[in-house]
């Protein structure tokens, strides 16, 4: 319990840190919001622009703006978008669904593919299948997401007409992007699982299990795999972070709605409240997933759980 509380405290710290960092970075970047908003035909430093600034509260000192923003957060107010005066929260919630669907299904692809290929690769160690899987996973790890995305579109949409290439809403539209985004993670997990299975197979207790007549399959699936999962679970948290970052590119390639696209557009327009809101959301996700990872260790490995008592 104490452990979970302390993790929670740390998580809040991380979120606060990232909000603060982003707030100051976007605000010191060159480019004036009011000028941008007013449009190209309004000359700089006119009455209109001054008025606009006052309306947005941009004339106040940065620190006041910051305190104001934080105070707003506590009331669930993430500000309003500069671009279209909609509440930021609404915009974010609109875009949250598609991104969540994308990252979670990519994660699914990564875990299932990684697990199966990793186990096969370890079981057929140094055989032909192992060689093929190792080459594939290396390709998966080293090829950029957008390139895989383009390749998938070209093969499955343009050449084979099997799946739609753009848009979101239906399940079919989710397939290609999640493979595109999930393949890097699958490569990482494959390699990790293979190595940790091979390592766990050398544990002395595996020899004694065999000595007790336990079958090869039970040893692999029950004993070795559980050991091999511990490092893989750590990796999951990191892979999730990469997927959130990757969704920016993937959503662009597949013309999908989502947080990634929202951030890209907001940066273009210097729509600071949207940028901050998206980063806040992303940070919260990332922290939550990693907290889940930390807590799940305690279920996988009793040594961690009981050492705290």
């Amino acid at each position, binding site marked *: 319990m104490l452990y979970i509380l302390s993790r929670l405290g740390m998580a809040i710290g991380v979120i606060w840190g990232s909000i603060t960092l982003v707030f100051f970075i976007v605000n010191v970047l060159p480019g004036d919001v009011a000028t941008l908003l007013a449009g190209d035909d309004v000359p700089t430093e006119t009455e209109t622009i001054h008025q606009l600034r006052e309306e947005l509260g941009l004339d106040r000192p940065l620190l006041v703006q910051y305190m104001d923003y934080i105070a707003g957060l506590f009331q669930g107010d993430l500000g309003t978008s500069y671009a279209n005066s909609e509440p930021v929260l609404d915009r974010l919630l609109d875009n949250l669904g598609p991104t969540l669907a994308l990252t979670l299904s990519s994660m699914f692809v990564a875990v299932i593919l990684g697990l199966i290929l990793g186990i096969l690769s370890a079981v057929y160690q140094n055989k032909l299948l192992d060689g093929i899987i190792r080459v594939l996973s290396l390709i998966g790890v080293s090829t950029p997401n957008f390139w895989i995305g383009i390749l998938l579109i070209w093969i499955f949409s343009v050449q084979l007409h099997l799946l739609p290439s753009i848009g979101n809403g239906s399940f079919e539209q989710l397939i290609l992007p999640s493979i595109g985004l999930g393949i890097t993670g699958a490569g990482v997990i494959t390699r990790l699982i293979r190595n940790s299975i091979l390592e766990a197979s050398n544990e*002395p207790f595996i020899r*004694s299990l*065999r*000595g*007790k*007549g336990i079958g090869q399959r039970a040893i692999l699936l029950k004993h070795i795999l559980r050991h091999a999962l511990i490092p893989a679970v750590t990796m999951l948290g990191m892979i999730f972070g990469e997927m959130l970052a990757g969704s920016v590119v993937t959503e662009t390639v597949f013309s999908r709605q989502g947080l990634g696209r929202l951030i890209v557009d907001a940066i273009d327009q210097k729509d600071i409240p949207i940028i901050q809101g998206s980063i806040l959301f992303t940070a919260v996700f990332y922290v939550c997933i990693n907290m889940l990872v930390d807590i799940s260790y305690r279920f*996988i490995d009793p*040594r961690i759980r009981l050492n705290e008592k």
Partner: protein
Amino acid sequence: MSVLLEIKNLSVSVERGKEILPAVRDVNLGIGSGEIVCLVGESGSGKTVTSLAVLRLIDYEGGRITGGEIIFHEQDIASLAQKEMNGIRGRKIAMVTQDPMTALNPVFTIGNQFVEVIRQHKSVSRMEAWEEAIRLLEKVHIPEPASRMKQYPFELSGGMLQRVAIALALACQPELLIVDEPTTALDVTIQAQILNLLLELREQESMSILFITHDLAVAAEIADKVAVMHEGTIVEQGTVREIFAFPGHWYTKTLVQSKRGLLMGSASVYDCQDDEIILEAEGLSKFYPLKSKPFQQKRYVQAVDQVSLSIRKGETLGLVGESGSGKSTLGKLLVSLQKSDSGRILYRGKDVTGGTKRTQKELRKNTQVVFQDTFSALNPRWKVEDIIGEPLRVHTKLSKDGIRERVEEVLRLVDLDPAFRTRYPHEISGGQRQRINIARAIILHPEFLLLDEAVSALDLAVQSKVIDLLKKLQQDMGLSYVFIAHGLDVVRDISHRIGVMYLGRIVEIAPAEELFTKPAHPYTKALFEANPTIDLDRRRKRHVLHGEIPSPVSPPSGCHFHTRCPLATEKCRSKAPVMDVLSEERTVACHYPLEEKERVELLR
């Protein structure tokens, strides 16, 4: 007696990297029913490979049976399919592996592991299997078996785990039990308990045991028949009496002699007459804080508790005691590798506790250490000459040629060819690596060496050579040693005086021979009684010390030993005994030290 298992002309090859090397050649060995056969040999002699071949586990470890037969119940195990083997493994032939700490899956409870094995071989329900497991744990004398079932392996001590592993192997009443170095990782007291347990189980279950060990004395304690292995073949086999009384093969002779040599060695130890005191400890204490929850009283492990001792020039002080008794911590305090929490250390009468950087550096120069693990003590990416020469670069201003000269000189001192200086640690054997460690320790002409389990990882023959070297160096350079080891025979061989430690306190200090022949503290006596010996006339059902060393977090009140002491009274429970001078050179901390007559009788 009918023959249960017969190995005929067995040969096994094992893959090592790209090569396939013969590991076992033409082994012939029969195990009668109800018989205990010991397979004795040094590491790498093929003992474990032979046992893995009997279970056909060798197939999983890059090995292959290249010839011969293993006849078990008129079946040739060597030619069975792995699937058929699963019906024999665990059911007819069971195995207990060396290190109990790693023999069980750390992420499952003890109970789960029992249930899995029992249900693999018998069609019973989970509940029935659970009940059966509790009965098995009772059979190996595990206290509170029902609550142990819900614990994880890392929550139990090594001795308890070995009992669990044995109980697990007994799950299906096997006819043959293969135990591979089951006591090597354990203290002598626990070793004696496990050996007694195995003898008891052999009677109860009427099973045969193939016992693999590197320790001749353990073999002498337990075996009916002994087979000596050397470089992949059995060089000699016979009844235990034949082997130890009339060893035939030269290799067996060397083994038996080096073991006996240890026992009479003390006489040949350089007699130290010097009364000059090099190092002294006064009321030395060290405790480690434990992780604790907030609002809870902080708890400590009392690793070393008010220890006072002195070491003279040219003298070896041995330290013995079960693991957890604080030997290693005391050693580290003596050479200031750790800071004591109270007490003083005097080096040549000068207080060096704490001290400035300069006095520390001076102290380091004169007090050196050699540890157990020969490999991890050496930087694997450095050549031998850089490793040995490093202290010179730190403490002296010698030129490159000067350093090389000294390195070659010191290599000759430890009986190594000076050509070794261009090699890397992984290119040389364990015994040679320990010589390198010793060479590095003596290159600055120190006065004091801490030898913490310095020979424990070496094979017997190598061990005795390194001991000889240490004795020679002591004589030539007037070195003083503190020698820490769990092997009592080695300590007896090299030490002038021996200190016995129990839960952070020294309970007795005496000259080596006197301590062994006339121990005054009941703990000392119990420790030595547990020590296996190749003297077959002393082989008997021993008075084994019950229980295990208590937790140093909450040590028993009064005399720490009272919970296990056969002589304990109310006084022992309430009042801690102080160090009492018995005679010159002898002190003991006990309310009821054993009388001279009693000591001799008990140790007969």
